[in-house]
């Protein structure tokens, strides 16, 4: 057909929704002195002891990679603003402490900044130091997030000097350079991640790795095959692997694909299968695998037919705490073989984006000619 205008780069498509009036309105609407959210969840400490963890999600300037380009699925741009000050950040942190009564009953705190915790352009160094020091003084195990290429030796050694042994979670998303480059637009490659892991180990920091289940532009079947392999590879080098099943964040590229019926969030059955297929290898490595299906059971999150979703989500959540594969032994639903056929079809068919159709609604209507 041929084009008449110069092609756009992928990152231009990713960035485009940021400047939509609705995105700007949303960004301008929030109070920068209050954290985005604070909540408590059951967790497990590095030594395997069950505990309560506080999660603090802050309003920040966002992610340096987003400023340049951005990941395909990332919707954090809705929650960041470039005029967030040191005072705002300290105020948010105080507020989080106030809400949780100084993290009463918690043994762990996860501090998420929609970017790299210890990147000075994103977060004021004074604030970083405050969080590292206070959490250490409160004897809380701290989990922060970082991009692999920002895990520099001097910075990690500084972090380690204030809060030794804390966990740094890196959003690797995929253990495959082609997927990192094309499906995720991650901004770094496997070599960089390996180097970051090495530096974290050198500084005696714990390594948590995030993997994405079913990135955009990939079928469910391929996602299942790849993710099992990625978990097996990554678990050898990580203390924890957290798998994030794709959920549709508003105004992102994935949202656009979803609206155009070019992307569907994963089946919950795929997550179960992924866990079952990787369980033994993970167990041998001593790594812990966590799967939290955000918006699980909803159309914009990992979901099944609507009848079995609650039960399957609960089993996945239980597994994340217990690491017991038996959590899935009693699950069954008539949609399981529909899922199984879809996976099979995805794997065998030359259809890069998959063969899946909507999972809910009248089967006769769903099967009308597309």
């Amino acid at each position, binding site marked *: *057909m*041929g*084009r008449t*205008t110069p*092609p*756009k*780069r*992928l990152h*231009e*498509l990713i960035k485009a929704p940021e400047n939509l009036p609705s995105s700007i309105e949303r960004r301008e609407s929030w109070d920068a002195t209050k954290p985005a959210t604070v909540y408590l969840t059951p967790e497990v400490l590095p030594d395997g002891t069950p505990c309560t963890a506080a999660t603090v999600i802050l309003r920040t300037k966002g992610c340096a990679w987003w400023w340049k380009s951005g990941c395909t699925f990332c919707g954090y741009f809705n929650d960041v603003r470039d005029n967030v000050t040191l005072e705002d950040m300290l105020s948010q942190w105080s507020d989080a402490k106030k809400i949780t009564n100084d993290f009463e009953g918690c043994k762990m705190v996860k501090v998420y900044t929609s970017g790299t915790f210890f990147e000075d352009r994103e977060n004021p160094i004074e604030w970083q130091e405050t969080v590292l020091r206070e959490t250490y003084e409160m004897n809380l195990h701290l989990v922060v997030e970082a991009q692999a290429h920002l895990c520099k030796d001097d910075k990690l050694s500084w972090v380690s000097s204030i809060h030794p042994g804390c966990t740094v979670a890196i959003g690797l998303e995929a253990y*495959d350079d*082609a*997927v990192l480059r*094309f*499906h995720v637009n991650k901004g770094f490659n496997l070599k960089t991640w390996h180097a970051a892991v090495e530096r974290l180990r050198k500084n005696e920091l714990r390594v948590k790795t995030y993997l994405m289940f079913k990135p955009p*532009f990939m079928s469910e*079947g*391929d996602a299942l*095959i*790849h993710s099992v*392999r990625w978990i097996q590879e990554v678990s050898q080098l990580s203390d924890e692997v957290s798998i994030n099943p794709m959920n549709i964040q508003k105004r992102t*590229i994935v949202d*656009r*694909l979803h609206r*155009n*019926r*070019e*992307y569907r969030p994963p089946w919950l059955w795929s997550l179960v299968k992924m866990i079952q297929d990787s369980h033994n290898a993970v167990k041998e490595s001593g790594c812990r695998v966590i799967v939290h299906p955000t918006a699980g059971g909803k159309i914009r999150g990992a979901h099944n037919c609507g009848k079995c979703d609650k039960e399957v989500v609960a089993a996945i959540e239980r597994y994340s705490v217990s690491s017991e594969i038996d959590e899935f032994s009693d699950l069954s639903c008539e949609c399981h*073989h*529909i899922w*199984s*056929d*879809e996976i*099979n*079809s*995805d*794997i*065998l*068919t*030359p*259809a*890069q*984006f*998959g*063969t899946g*159709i909507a999972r809910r609604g009248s*089967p*006769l209507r*769903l*099967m*009308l*000619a*597309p």
Partner: protein
Amino acid sequence: MVTIPSLGRTVTSRVRFARIFALGDRSNPSANTPSMVLMDDDDPLEVAYAPFRMSRDSSKTPAELKMKTRAKLCPPFNDIVTWKASEGLSLPPSLIESDAGIFPHGNAFLPITAQSLFHDSNLSNIEFEPSIICFVDSLQLVNNDNLLIKSLHSVKRRFPSSLIWMPGVSGPDNCSLLAWLGVDLMDLIRVKRAFSKGIHISAFGPIKIDKSMNQTQAWEKQIQFWKDSINTTREAIRVGNIRRIVEATCLSSPRSVQRLRRHDNFMSKIAISDPGNAGLASSMPPGTVLECNSRDTRDDPLIRYWQDRVTENWNPNPHQSKIAVLLPCSAVKPYRKSPSHSRFRHAINSRSVSEIMITAPLGIVPRDLEVLWPASSYDIPVIGEWDSDELHTIKTMLSKINSRVGFEVVINHSGIEIELEDTVVINTRESDSAGSESALKRLSEAVRENVGSYGLKEPKRSVALLASFRSISRHLLGGDQWLSNAKITGKAPDYRIMIESDQIALWDSKRGRFAFSKAALEVLKHTNLLPKVELIEGFKWSGDLFSTNISSYSGSPRIGDDMLVYQGGILVGSARAVAPAWEWPTAPGALARARHRV
């Protein structure tokens, strides 16, 4: 250099973009299209229905694809052949403004996407004709009909000899529609999906599986649905009535109806300016009937082309330019053969008026052109009333023609209420039927009075006949210069067209076309009315024209069009196109049949 074997294929039947390819050795084909591609886990079907099998290695990024023939389909027909390709990493159709990723690539088996069609310059530059082209984004592309239709059309035009496959989309309910759009290969992916939900896909859409059947019986029935649809589609292409099958089966899905309508709109625009590229024929074999049984037929590009051509180009003959008589159509075609039109013509009894038939779905059919396809052979259910859309078409066409032509008087015997600006309209029907004595009497009187009052002289029969053929020529060929010095002889309906003592053409009334004689070629050569084809230097022309014999062509041949054949710039004969322009110059099989050699 390793030569990649390509599929042995010949087009044996065609209607617009729907074709039957004979696959394998032309003298003993192993299979025909439409047919199936099996996936690795599919149970085997007969090669006649499923001549290919697909394997995909998804452990790699991008996935690797292998397409294997299930019979010896590639010359010299000694081996089963496997073609390899890469699925690529594409963006889905909604993001085709970006060229990011890795374009799919292959050779005889070529995967593509809407994105690669848009951005991959290699597709314009490759010099081979892929045997099979596969849309690896087809399940997403079907969500955007306009892009789908454009993409398919681009691929058909660029690679007219390739088989097209859209994995995951087909079923017995849309097999004929996909064939109509130009898709040649189907698969079991969708019916398997339905089967897992307890559903059969029949030719008329999804139905619940009868619970009394066991799994094996139910699957066999599903396969039978598929085979029946493939057989029906093939047969419909063979006999030329695939449009009727498409319109009937589309009704099971709103998306199919929508796609057919959008395709009609898209192709109508092309047909109006370039009918050969819309796959239209200028004439059809005797007995072919355009069946206009559904309302969607009125959007058929063939109908739209007729309406546009008549509205914008038809002119009354010089001796018939003052008075028009509007008449109802008849069930018998051409109308003049019907008893009702015998009575009308008897009542009119003048060659000085333009007889214009009012009809649906063609709108308007001038008497001269009633012998041409499709006016000469269409059928439509008649309930005795016009609907608003039909009336709108007729009135709009009439109004446009009249404002261009400027009739002084329109004698309206059609029964439709007509008003025309600056033209006197005389209603001869009043409330009577068209064939009633009183109405015919009023028709007769109105013609006689107006012919008299405008002092119109009756032309000689030969003059009127020549004018009529000139009108036909303008409609068919776009001009009538070649008839400037001609005269018409012989008996109706197969008249002879002479220049001095040379017969330059015969009117073939059964097919509604001119059969040019060798003597006409020199005359036609100077008119630029016929498409031209240039043979390869040194080629010894003895029969049909194939892509391998042709170095270039010009014009936009329709099926049935005569073409002038040149070699080294010298006129060497004529041929008749059997493939429309969109398939030129590389469609497999004959493109044109030899007619005359100079």
